[in-house]
């Protein structure tokens, strides 16, 4: 089957990715990140960033409104739970679809402009969605509190199939397997793997080549007989569907959809994830997403008590000094570390974390080859 015809490097990358993802709970445990919620977030925001990179990394269109599709996906999924069934499959399908439809509408208008004008258009649409979801659209979104499940929800499909959740609030389950905890993570991980596979295909396909041509020289592309608009729009819709899927998965693992998921800062976050990991690379955005979520959840949790213990080997004077210096960067200061990280990465590693890895591996290779060959400058089209 042609579908599996991938280059050796891509197969290695994909297999490595699958192993790493499935073994995530074990690999990440020593880093304090091996618990279900964070693992789920890694997978979900990995999907979000992967999709964003199809748009930004390939076509160069910098959208500041992708959080709107994530939010739309979440609301769709929760509504699907409420109205139809607690089974995650219909919710996932519908949220992906709604993400795509939303993206088609917003993309159709926004793609009439390029550069920063495009960015501001997408930002404007996302902010309008957020502001309305927070206030006027409360009947649909439940505003500030966020859309939640209730015992009294109709769930017509579940009822038709004779499923009764009794007095407890239901949670999503995949034919009996509850979508919280580790099963929830593996459910997301499977989607992450599928999404990654699709992305490899897109990157290596003629379609992907056309998208990269859009970024490189849209004018030339048009004079080459290619209508770039539908390519741009397809990339926008695909990335919107990734975002909708990610939003749906957020709701599957945790059935609550809040408006702040649509805020511009959330859109900005996925931009940062992508650039931090390495825009235009296959795997970079997943790493960027992981890095930011790790900071948000782990660094913010270090409080003075933990620091005191960590520095307990020091004499008392030094201990409190070390704690007060460190506490600027962790706990309530985790934002500071994040900001500094952005700056350092972009100053010293313009290609994001992936460039860092590449440099390190090139260095190792050079060491091993006795510094003899100059072939370390890798071919850009085969970069991971």
């Amino acid at each position, binding site marked *: 089957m042609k579908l599996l015809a991938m280059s050796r490097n891509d197969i290695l990358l994909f297999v490595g990715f699958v192993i790493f993802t499935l073994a995530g709970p074990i690999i990440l445990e020593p880093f304090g990140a091996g618990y279900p919620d964070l693992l789920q977030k890694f997978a979900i925001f990995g999907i979000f960033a992967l999709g964003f990179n199809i748009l930004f990394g390939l076509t160069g269109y910098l959208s500041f409104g992708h959080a709107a599709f994530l939010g739309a996906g979440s609301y769709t999924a929760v509504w699907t739970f409420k109205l139809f069934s607690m089974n995650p499959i219909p919710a996932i399908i519908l949220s992906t679809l709604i993400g795509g439809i939303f993206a088609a509408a917003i993309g159709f208008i926004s793609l009439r402009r390029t550069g920063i*004008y495009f960015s*501001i258009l997408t930002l404007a649409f996302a902010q309008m969605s957020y502001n309305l979801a927070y206030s006027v659209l409360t009947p649909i979104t439940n505003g500030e509190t966020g859309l939640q499940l209730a015992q009294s929800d109709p769930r017509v499909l579940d009822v038709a199939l004779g499923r009764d959740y009794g007095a407890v609030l239901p949670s999503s389950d995949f034919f009996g397997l509850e979508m919280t905890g580790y099963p929830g993570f593996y459910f997301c991980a499977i989607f992450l793997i599928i999404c990654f596979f699709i992305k490899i295909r897109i990157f290596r396909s003629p379609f992907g080549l056309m998208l990269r041509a859009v970024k490189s020289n849209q004018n030339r592309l048009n004079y080459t007989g290619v209508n770039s608009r539908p390519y741009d729009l397809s990339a926008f819709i695909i990335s919107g569907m990734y975002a909708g899927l990610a939003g749906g998965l957020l709701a599957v693992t945790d059935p609550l959809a809040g408006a702040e998921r649509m805020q511009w800062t959330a859109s900005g976050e996925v931009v940062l994830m992508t650039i931090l990991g390495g825009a235009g690379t296959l795997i970079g955005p997943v790493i960027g997403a992981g890095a930011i979520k790790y900071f948000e959840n782990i660094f913010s949790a270090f409080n003075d008590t933990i620091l005191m213990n960590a520095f307990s080997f020091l004499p008392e004077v030094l201990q409190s000094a070390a704690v007060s210096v460190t506490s600027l960067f962790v706990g309530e200061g985790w934002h*500071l570390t994040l900001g500094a990280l952005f700056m350092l*990465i972009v100053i010293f590693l313009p290609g994001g974390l992936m460039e860092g890895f590449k440099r390190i591996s090139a260095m190792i290779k050079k060491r091993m080859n006795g510094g003899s060959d100059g072939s370390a400058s890798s071919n850009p089209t085969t970069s991971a």
Partner: protein
Amino acid sequence: MDAIFLQVLNGLDKGGAYALIALGLTLIFGTLGVVNFAHGALFMLGAFVAVAFKSILSLEQVTIDPTRMTAWGTPMEIRQPFVEVWFGDLGATVLEYSVPFAILAAIPTMLFIGLVMERGLIQFFYKRPHADQILVTFGLAIVVQEIIKSIFGANPIPQPAPEIAKGMIDFGVALGFDAGNVVYPAWRLIYFLFSLSVIAVVFAFLQFTTFGMVVRAGMADRETVGLLGIDIDRRFTIVFGIAALVAGLAGLMYTPILSPDYHMGMDFLVLSFVVVVVGGMGSLSGAVLAGFLLGILQSFASMNEVKAIFPGIDQIIIYLIAVVVLLVRPRGLMGRKGVMEH
């Protein structure tokens, strides 16, 4: 009628702040070609110059009064600002006028911050993609605001206007309205006039000085000006300083209207980008025009009569205008072709 008139005033006042921030932002776009996500942080820093200035002025002499106790059982501390201890009433007056006086401190401070930022960071990003510029300046904005938070905390810090500017001015009478119908806070009028004069000074500076001429030429065609043997980079450094100063002053004078907190820069960031884009990237007059226009339309959209027809319109008006303007006029109100389109 007077309601509409008041809303226009509100819009002009708001617009003044928008225009000042957008002016610096678009100046940086136009000259350096840099997307500065730290511009909101400069606005915030300006406001905190006022806070810091006042805190320095109100450094207190602490005397312990052992006869009285606090509610938690420690001796009561009697605090009196040194300026009052040393200068008496004069000191108290200086304290009261701390916001306007802080301008004196803000001018060198903001210029210095601008120069350091440009030389220390921004200059390495002239040729880098916009995405990199966004990431690095956004990172800087976070770092700056977290530093401010660790010094001043997260709560807003009140910066009252001088007593004399706290009142209202009933100038509607002069325009033929009934007395008491069109009254407006003095400080807000001062702010509006202040923003107008800063805009005028910036424009005059760019229009009538050699320096300004070179900068404008550089905005139009950087390479050619560079070929003439003019050291455009050094001038652009100064431009960055000026942009920082304008944003800082806008923030500083706004403090009696909006009690500053560490996060206020981010709140203005998105808005100022919308203003710049609606005005047209790299267009100074566009930024000013869009600033006032958005301010006024935002005020109108908040009127009960309008909200009754379009519920929630005041939540989205700014973005709605941005969408409409960009669809009708691809490069904003006064933008030039080819700027920031790739």
